[in-house]
């Protein structure tokens, strides 16, 4: 698998390149060493199979065919006519957004549209999954999914966002299996240089047991046990108060420890503290040890008094118990035997690609809220398990389906189709991050910067250029140049911290931001190599229209749209030409076609 080889070299080359700093820093060396080790092990475990060949080798029909069968059988039952397949341009924009988080640059779009090969869609999917941009994007997606933009009450008492994103990006670059990633997130106490940044999951929630219990249930098992905190849930018979407190018991002994000297914030844990609960309805009481929903209680081992603590609690000291319930959570939860563990993640990955889950909302899977396609959901979970939780492989299969590749144009005479039939591509908002990055891409500023960075690397490091250029680390640094701009734009479009991304809900302050903030004027300065600069140099309005549409919408304009551009620029005095072009571009950037993933 190409991604893996690169990750290995990633580590070695990075060490070579930043040699002096790194060799002296044992932490960083250890980090890279371990990543390499993990990568190698993973490589060994999964064998030399490319993601796509997996199903062939196992002599099973490809998953994407089975998915389409399930979805299309549903239409037959309902006598439903689906949308046609997406055009190349629709597919191109969508798959770039879903797998890399950014619309394609104009030249890439042109090349793809002009490619006659019948295999070009599958080839593009593979190319994108293998790109460094995939890892950068998945890290952003997972950050938002797992932390929901929460901020620790004391901001500085958290893992710096950059370290957490590095952890996630490297994880996706090596295609770390989902169970392994969850294990690392739930097991860490923040001390390990490699997995320590994963403590951001705990720290963003101030290590509060109620919040952690709820979010472990919601995000890793797909069940929101919040109401079961006070009583068995009468509406969702499968949500029991004992389930809530079973998870609670894994995290109830945790607390936050801020080391004033190193400025690091870590997790402390106690060796005692039992969990009891009382139903507010029936008054019945319970007591529980750690237990996952549907699983068995895990008894604490009997330890001699002196074994109870590795580090005993004291003022200014991080207590470490001899037996950690947190480690148990990390080891016990991410397993196929845990009810909901596989179902939750395949449902979430499905939603990432298809706009909504088979179970919706994503965190309310229970008997009275069944999946739209129960058999398909089980099949996905089963296959994901036999793929050893290979995220890339599952996303690849999803992207290959006809279901993913439907047009957003409704079939003739239809005004609406129930979204849970997956018969037409949904119109969904670009995430705040997708929007911010895509504005940079459309304006041409991203390409200009990446080209410069690329040239610099080529001249500074010609020998290892080819490899370095493909590493997540180099790319992350290159993209981070826009980190601050992206964050400030994304903040305007983000939901309140602690809420999942909801349905598209455009607000007036967002419109005002696009209309009157300096974001678009700055992006559309006619600097060398940017979109406006390129358009100004186009002699014919027809060519200009084509470049503009490829840059913004990843498609070519139709006759009417070309005529509109021609009309708009007709008779414009030379000194007004830049402004007239800017009007066209900014109008298009404010359009629904740009704002939506369709």
């Amino acid at each position: 698998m190409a991604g893996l080889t690169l990750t290995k070299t990633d580590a070695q080359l990075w060490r070579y390149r930043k040699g002096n700093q790194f060799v002296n820093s044992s932490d960083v060396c250890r980090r890279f060493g371990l990543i390499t080790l993990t990568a190698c092990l993973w490589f060994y475990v999964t064998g030399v199979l490319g993601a796509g060949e997996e199903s062939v080798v196992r002599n099973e029909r490809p998953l994407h065919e089975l998915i389409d069968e399930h979805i299309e059988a549903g239409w037959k039952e309902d006598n439903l006519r689906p949308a046609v397949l997406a055009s190349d341009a629709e597919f191109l924009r969508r798959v770039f957004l879903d797998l890399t988080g950014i619309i394609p640059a104009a030249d890439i779009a042109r090349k793809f549209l002009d490619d006659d090969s019948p295999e070009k869609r599958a080839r593009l999917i593979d190319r994108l999954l293998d790109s460094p941009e995939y890892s950068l994007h998945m890290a952003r997606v997972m950050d938002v999914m797992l932390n929901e933009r929460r901020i620790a009450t004391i901001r500085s008492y958290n893992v710096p966002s950059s370290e957490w994103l590095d952890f996630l990006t490297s994880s996706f670059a090596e295609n770390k299996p989902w169970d392994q990633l969850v294990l690392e997130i739930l097991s860490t106490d923040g001390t390990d240089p490699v997995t320590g940044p994963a403590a951001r999951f705990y720290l963003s929630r101030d290590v509060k047991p109620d919040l952690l219990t709820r979010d472990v249930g919601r995000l890793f098992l797909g069940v929101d046990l919040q109401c079961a905190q006070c009583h068995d849930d009468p509406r969702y018979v499968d949500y029991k108060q004992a389930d809530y407190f079973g998870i609670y018991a894994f995290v109830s002994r945790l607390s936050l420890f801020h080391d004033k000297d190193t400025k690091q914030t870590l997790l402390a844990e106690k060796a005692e503290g039992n969990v009891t609960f009382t139903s507010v309805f029936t008054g019945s009481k319970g007591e529980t040890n750690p237990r996952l929903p549907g699983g068995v209680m895990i008894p604490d081992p009997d330890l001699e008094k002196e074994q109870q603590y590795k580090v005993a609690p004291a003022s200014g000291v991080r207590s470490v118990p001899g037996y950690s319930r947190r480690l148990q959570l990390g080891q016990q939860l991410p397993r196929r035997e845990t009810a909901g563990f596989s179902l939750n993640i395949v449902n979430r990955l499905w939603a990432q690609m298809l706009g909504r889950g088979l179970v919706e909302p994503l965190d309310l899977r229970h008997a009275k809220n069944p999946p739209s396609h129960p058999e398909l959901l089980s099949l996905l979970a089963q296959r994901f398990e036999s793929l050893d939780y290979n995220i890339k492989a599952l996303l690849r299969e999803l992207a290959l389906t006809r279901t993913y590749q439907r047009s957003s144009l409704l079939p003739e005479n239809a005004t609406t189709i129930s979204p849970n039939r997956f018969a037409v591509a949904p119109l969904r908002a670009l995430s705040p991050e997708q929007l911010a990055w895509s504005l940079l891409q459309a304006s041409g500023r991203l390409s200009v910067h990446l080209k410069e960075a690329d040239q610099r690397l080529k001249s500074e490091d010609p020998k290892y250029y080819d490899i370095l250029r493909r590493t997540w680390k180099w790319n992350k640094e290159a993209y981070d140049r826009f980190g601050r701009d992206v964050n400030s734009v994304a903040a305007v479009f983000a939901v309140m911290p602690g809420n999942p991304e909801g349905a598209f809900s455009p607000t007036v302050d967002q419109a005002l931001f696009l209309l009157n903030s300096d974001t678009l004027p700055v992006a559309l300065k006619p600097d060398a190599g940017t979109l406006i600069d390129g358009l100004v140099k186009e002699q014919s309005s027809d060519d200009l229209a084509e470049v503009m549409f490829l840059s913004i919408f990843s498609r070519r304009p139709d006759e009417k749209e070309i005529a509109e551009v021609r009309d708009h620029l007709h008779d414009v005095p030379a000194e007004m030409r830049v402004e007239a072009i800017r009007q066209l571009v900014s109008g298009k950037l404010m359009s629904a076609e740009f704002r939506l993933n369709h």
Partner: protein
Amino acid sequence: MKRLTACNQSEHVVSRRSILAGTIGALGAGVLGQPLLSEELHARRKRLLILFQSGGASQFETWDPKPGTKTGGPFRAISTSLPGVHIGELLPHTAGIMHRLAVVRSVNTRIADHFLGHYALQSGRRVPGYPVLGSAAARLLEQPGDVLPGYVSLRRDGPKAFTDIGDAGFLGPKYEAVKIINGQPPANLVRPAAISESTESARDAIRRRSDERFLSGRSARSIQAYGNSFDQAAVLMKRRDIFDLNKEPAADRERYGDHDFGRHCLLARRLLESGINCVKVVHHDWDAHEENFHWHQQRCSEFDGTFATLINDFADRGLLEDTLIVVTGEMGRTPRINNRAGRDHWGNAWSMAMAGCGIEQGVVYGKTNEDGTSVVDGEVDLGHLFHTWLTALGLDPTGHYDIGGGENQIGTPAASAIKELLA
């Protein structure tokens, strides 16, 4: 009265996604062509004004004085326009308008935490995720054709801004408060000088044509909702003077008081009169862990004059009839006076007040014991208050948010409105 439990069976968010389905397309495309709201129509609309005493005011120094007891502190109680009823001497002007108010002296929320209190008092729930009063009312009072934001909150900038917590919850960003901080209007209301008027309209025409083409053959809701947000922006830009306090007469500015709270209350009046349905004014710094009595002298003197002016002014202008005014903090303060002459966080026996639309005038509801350490009559929890406020606004708190076939009652099913407080 029945004691309440923290969570109850219908407090379940079924679908955050689908809830907007019914409302997002409510604004017609031709919104700009219509007058904002006819005056007559607007006069009949119910409105909400929340005066939030952030940090937690002491009930002893305000609505429920206990002079001469060991918990009562140094201040006297004074008689009010309501025969037989006394309040703290720090509220002399308020004493003169007691006959217009309904005061609850028996609030027991058992919450002694700023963050939870801010959320819980406003949402009527302890479980997170629900919309606060301002957002809920904005959604429920909304009518087709409304273009201005439904909910605006006014506050000072500062580190203790616990107040903007949660807000719209599962109702989504559309019902989040538009935040006016330090009297600054929302960002980006003015077209920058670098963008000419002709550029502005050219851009707009290009955007509209692009959307028309894109709409053809596609499901309309998202595309129209996005277009509507630009229509709303255009209206707000045109009417940005609704945020401009200088447009109010100087005499009113003086009457309302030359401090943040006074200015924010006058701005609230201006916004409510301009067609914003729900406004929250945050009055800061009630969290008096030290020097409680000194602090309350200061805080009450700001609050008292402005509040009495506002109530009388709203009554004179005919606004009071249609505007529910709620005065509350996130909690009260301890009976015990600590060794720094402060009072600490306390949720077990405290007071709040309301007036206006749908509220009985001149009522004091509930009672605490002699030294104010517990409620002895008419105990009231979050849910009761929330039900009462919604009912006063002519809304049905036992109704449901319309979400994907699920049941999600607007007010907690474990509580009901307090009839004695309702007109």
